[in-house]
């Protein structure tokens, strides 16, 4: 999610060093929903702000599909500022003068945590031998990381989009682990439309001859074209029609008339191609397959006997956690109705919940962008 900026190739080639990546290994194998388990799991993470001596001020931020642990620090591959730098920092809504903010790369991803590009026990990359994981598996790994860190109970777990799914999953499956649950622009289940868009992306990757059944590591070829198309399709779902119209309309790219060909005549085409190719420089195609699969499998109600309210039964007396859900009126990927569905279930379970639909023009991506009302809600919920 978010926009790609021009990659600073020079800086990358001479290895402009980001701060040393931080990671820890889980001391126990990670049991997975598939029945398999993952050995020697590495969790790569970043932290901001100090942990209090009582260890009670930790805020875990869960990232979205293509996000990473660099929530408020420079991305080592792109040189871009953190993806939520506008939200996380000293004096910002998630105030690092007050909170110890932790953000970890989810398992299955490609920024240092164990994923399909990691080496299996035979010393070769897992590729498609990596087990299919779920959102709950990602959360199990995060909880395992918190155990290693000695953090028994989070002050709050916060996430947008897939990060919100993790926040809700943590609340459902580990009800004692977080005191406040803030889930933004998210859903309790992937809809047919959500799955359809993801399948389009996966098929684009797998149709790329350079994908090589996923075993492209070390071959000098990678399915960049497929991954780029996947990203372009997904990127459209993150924006609103109105936003695209305002930003591009039917304006042409560096020309006065259409070229009667298939170059990027329109600015919107040029923009999407740029988003797509920028993405391939920072993300692994197999990770994209695995993480979209995890999101498609996500159905919090189904995990709990088909009733979403039962997923939150651990919060019945309202003593475990307070919840806050936020949706955006232009988000058609996870529309307001999905947040309301979660809110109704929390009400039915008797859990204390707040909900607000904010107005913002940017579609699903609104949670990452300049929406002052979101800042106020996040700050209000965490400090109130």
């Amino acid at each position, binding site marked *: 999610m978010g926009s790609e900026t021009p990659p600073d190739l020079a800086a990358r080639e001479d290895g402009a060093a980001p701060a040393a990546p931080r990671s820890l290994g889980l001391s126990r194998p990670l049991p997975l929903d598939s029945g398999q388990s993952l050995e020697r799991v590495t969790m790569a993470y970043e932290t901001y702000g100090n942990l209090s001596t009582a260890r009670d001020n930790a805020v875990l931020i869960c990232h979205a599909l293509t996000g990473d642990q660099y929530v408020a620090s420079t991305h080592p591959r792109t040189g871009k500022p953190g993806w939520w730098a506008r939200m996380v920092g000293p004096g910002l809504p998630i105030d690092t003068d007050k909170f110890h903010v932790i953000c970890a790369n989810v398992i299955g991803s490609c920024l240092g945590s164990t994923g399909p590009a990691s080496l299996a026990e035979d010393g070769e990359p897992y590729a498609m031998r990596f087990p299919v994981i779920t959102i709950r598996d990602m959360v199990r790994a995060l909880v395992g990381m918190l155990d290693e860190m000695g953090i028994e109970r989070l002050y709050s777990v916060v996430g947008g989009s897939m990060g919100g799914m993790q926040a809700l999953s943590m609340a459902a499956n580990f009800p004692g682990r977080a005191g406040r649950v803030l889930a933004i622009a998210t859903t309790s289940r992937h809809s047919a439309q959500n799955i359809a868009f993801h399948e389009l992306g996966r098929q684009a990757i797998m149709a790329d001859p350079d994908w090589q059944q996923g075993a492209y590591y070390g071959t000098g070829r990678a399915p960049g074209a497929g991954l780029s198309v996947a990203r372009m399709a997904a990127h459209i779902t993150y924006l609103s029609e109105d936003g695209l119209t305002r930003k591009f309309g039917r304006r042409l790219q560096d020309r006065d008339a259409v070229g009667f060909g298939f170059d990027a005549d329109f600015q919107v085409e040029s923009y999407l191609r740029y988003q797509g190719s920028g993405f391939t420089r920072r993300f692994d195609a197999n990770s994209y397959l695995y993480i979209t699969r995890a999101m498609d499998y996500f159905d919090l109600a189904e995990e709990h006997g088909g009733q979403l309210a039962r997923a939150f039964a651990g919060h019945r007396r309202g003593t475990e956690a*307070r919840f806050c859900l936020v949706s955006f009126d232009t988000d058609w990927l996870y529309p307001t109705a999905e947040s309301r569905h979660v809110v109704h279930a929390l009400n*039915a379970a008797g859990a204390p919940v707040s*909900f607000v639909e904010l107005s913002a023009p940017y579609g699903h991506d609104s949670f990452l962008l300049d929406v002052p009302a979101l800042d106020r809600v996040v*700050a*209000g919920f965490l400090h*109130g």
Partner: protein
Amino acid sequence: MVEGVEALRPDLAVIFRSVEAGSRALDVGCGDGALMAALRDHKQVDARGIEIDGAMVERCVARGLSVVQGDADRDLACYPDGAFDYAILSQTLQTAERPDRMLKELLRVGRRAFVSFPNFAYWRMRWALVRRGRMPVTRHLPVSWYETQNIHHVTVRDFEALAHDLGIGIERCWFFTGTRECGRGAANWRAEHALFELARAD
């Protein structure tokens, strides 16, 4: 009076005094959450709210209150039976799509309900209607008929009749003129607004 309570509107101040400490309450149309905050801070009430205005919800969230942005006509349905000791509906009944259904819903989710509303039979209203022959615009109902949210004007007597028809018990009632409580005598004439405490008939 305890801090934060003296600022409450008179009907809310009565509700504040009447709600049992440590109980569970749902404030339907909770506005900026002033009553909820007072109940939480001074009476250890587990208070929840519904509010249609997003800016108000923001303020509630910043106060640490649990408030859901929603429409009381629709969203009460998602609360389980008897989830609350009290359901509170202040100055909102006259905006409901179906006030009769709203009362039933309040007493489904709450064992008791507090309901307050502006009394359309208040003498100044009657006088304004008689004298000018136009829908009254007053201190309590300051908006013209075509843009008011008050789509079901109700009088004290109408309300009592509806409660009777629905088999709802009126436990207590309070009447107000301006910011002051007034007596029950000739309340349908004298009261600018009214507050009722209701209980299920059973």
